[in-house]
């Protein structure tokens, strides 16, 4: 049965002389085509490069810094950037370079986990709504409409108000806020691919609904959802940093960029680096994610290409 269904999902391969060989060749050429196009996209490469550096910095944080990100050092408070403290120190005398590097260990995973929450939940809901239709679709889509009635931060406020202010709940809040976009996107793709021949074929030979849905439809509708995920990591990082800035997420002394920025507000004129360093960190991270996401979309969706 499994063999039959996989054959049904790739009906074209049976036409070639050596089906498996030509299938491999096609996948390989598609992949090299993708990499070639991505390489030509300066923005995507730049974004990937900065992102790579940030990830590397996050992993190697203890190796590439020499101070403690949390221990207070009153003697060295609010030092301007110098040879000892490359990016200066904060009001508690902590080295800002160290804190901003350790901050990457928080902000990057927070953004990614939030997106994983919204992408997986949203995709599953979209699959179910699109495939089963009728009442199931009606209920899911009305729930999504209700979620959409709350502007981003307000929904997060509701969730944080219920669960309490901390970083984990911010991830959940930002994650839930992102669900509707995936559900709508995936549902749309499912609706159009539900009628396709390979789905009909799989159904006719008695493949269970669940298998049709996850093994045959999912791989064909996942592309746009992946692009959307890449594009949303940036806004998720921004949203999470914003909530921490407001005091609803990471709590001091955690070296989270948003809460670091909030801690520097009284020193705007005297020590602007206290706010600028985490500010630049957030902007650079989000910018690199957006550049990469834009490039990925251009490559995968030729219609949105620049020329």
């Amino acid at each position, binding site marked *: 049965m499994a063999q039959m269904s996989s054959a049904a999902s790739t009906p074209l391969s049976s036409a070639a002389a050596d089906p498996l060989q030509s299938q491999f060749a096609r996948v390989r050429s598609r992949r090299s085509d993708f990499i070639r196009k991505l390489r030509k996209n300066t923005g995507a490469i730049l974004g990937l490069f900065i992102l790579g550096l940030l990830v590397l910095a996050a992993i190697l944080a203890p190796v590439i810094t020499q101070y403690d990100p949390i221990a207070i050092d009153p003697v060295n408070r609010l030092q301007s950037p110098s040879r000892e403290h490359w990016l200066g120190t904060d009001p508690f005398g902590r080295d800002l370079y160290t804190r901003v590097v350790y901050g990457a260990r928080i902000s990057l995973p927070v953004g990614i986990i939030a997106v994983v929450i919204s992408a997986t939940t949203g995709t599953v809901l979209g699959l179910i709504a699109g495939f089963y239709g009728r009442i199931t679709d009606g209920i899911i889509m*009305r729930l999504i409409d209700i979620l959409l009635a*709350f502007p981003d931060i307000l929904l997060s406020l509701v969730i944080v*108000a219920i669960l309490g202010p901390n970083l984990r709940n911010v991830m959940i809040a930002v994650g839930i806020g992102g669900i509707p976009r995936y559900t709508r996107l995936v549902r749309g793709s499912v609706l159009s691919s539900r009628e396709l021949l390979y789905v009909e074929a799989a159904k006719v030979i008695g493949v269970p609904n669940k298998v049709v849905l996850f093994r045959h439809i999912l791989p064909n509708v996942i592309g746009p959802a992946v692009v959307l995920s890449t594009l949303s990591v940036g806004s998720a990082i921004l949203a999470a940093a914003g909530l921490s800035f407001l005091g609803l997420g990471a709590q001091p002394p955690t070296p989270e960029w948003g809460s670091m920025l909030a801690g520097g507000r009284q020193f705007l*004129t005297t020590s602007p680096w206290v706010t600028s360093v985490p500010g630049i960190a957030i902007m650079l991270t989000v910018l690199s994610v957006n550049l990469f996401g834009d490039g990925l979309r251009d490559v995968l969706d030729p219609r949105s290409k620049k020329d």
Partner: protein
Amino acid sequence: MLRFIQTRLLLTIPVLLGVSLISFSILHLIPGDPARILLSDAGGSGGGGDASEQAYLNLRAELGLDDPLIVQYFHYISNAIRGDLGYSYTTSQPVGNTIIDLLPATLQLTIFGLGIAIIIGLVLGVIASMYQNTWIDTLTMIFSLIGLSMPSFWLGFLLINFMSFRFGLLPASGSEGIQALILPSATLGLVAAGTIARLVRSTMLEVLQQEYIVTARAKGLRYRSVIIGHALRNALIPVVTVVGLQFGGLLSGAVIIETVFARRGIGRLAIDAVLSRDYPMIQGTILVAAFGYVIVNLIVDVSYAWMDPRIKYQ
């Protein structure tokens, strides 16, 4: 058209009910008994957090917590419709009055921010599309990408630092007068302008390839009048929807901006309510904001259908 509005209105009803249900549920979803939380918050640490059993029972009865949930929800809705959103735990003031007091300030900020975003977004988007693939295009797109990636709270701090502290041009905080509105709404607008600019650029590029544009050019019309008279008009249609969505984004942005600039408004009210666990205030602000957002989107949808007759017939 009337039919379209009718359907759209009907679809709004379950959404509004859902919103009210979520707002109502906040009090019931928090871990622990609301009456106990309220008593321990109000009692502080003086009594060791142990409120007397009688006070607890009284409060439960007063809050109507002994009624079945469906009855409580019905009370909540019927009170809300009459404008009674309960009393703040922290100030003891009626929630409805506090919100009505602060709503104009937030609306002012949001509308000014939206205005700035639309003006900058339109200008940048049109220029970028006119000079496609030149350095002007690249520069405007880099600007909008930075806008998309910039945390508004940091941009706010930068503007405060330069425009207020360094050059003393504008007040850094406060809610009185038009001067105090400029920096906050500029912050809000600059961040949102990026999205609009990108959208205007891409829809303009699409429209510019249409046959009627070629015709207009071929019959000898000036490029500028083709851009403004023919292209922009049609490119604006999809922009309207995004402006509706942006309104929600700006409302969210206002929450942060009001904190950055220490402005009065329902955004800051909501944050303070969450931080001080003032549940009636949280419920009230969220209910009002979500209702407002739903209604703005309804207006946007209707005006969209009015501008583009194809929508009505799906």
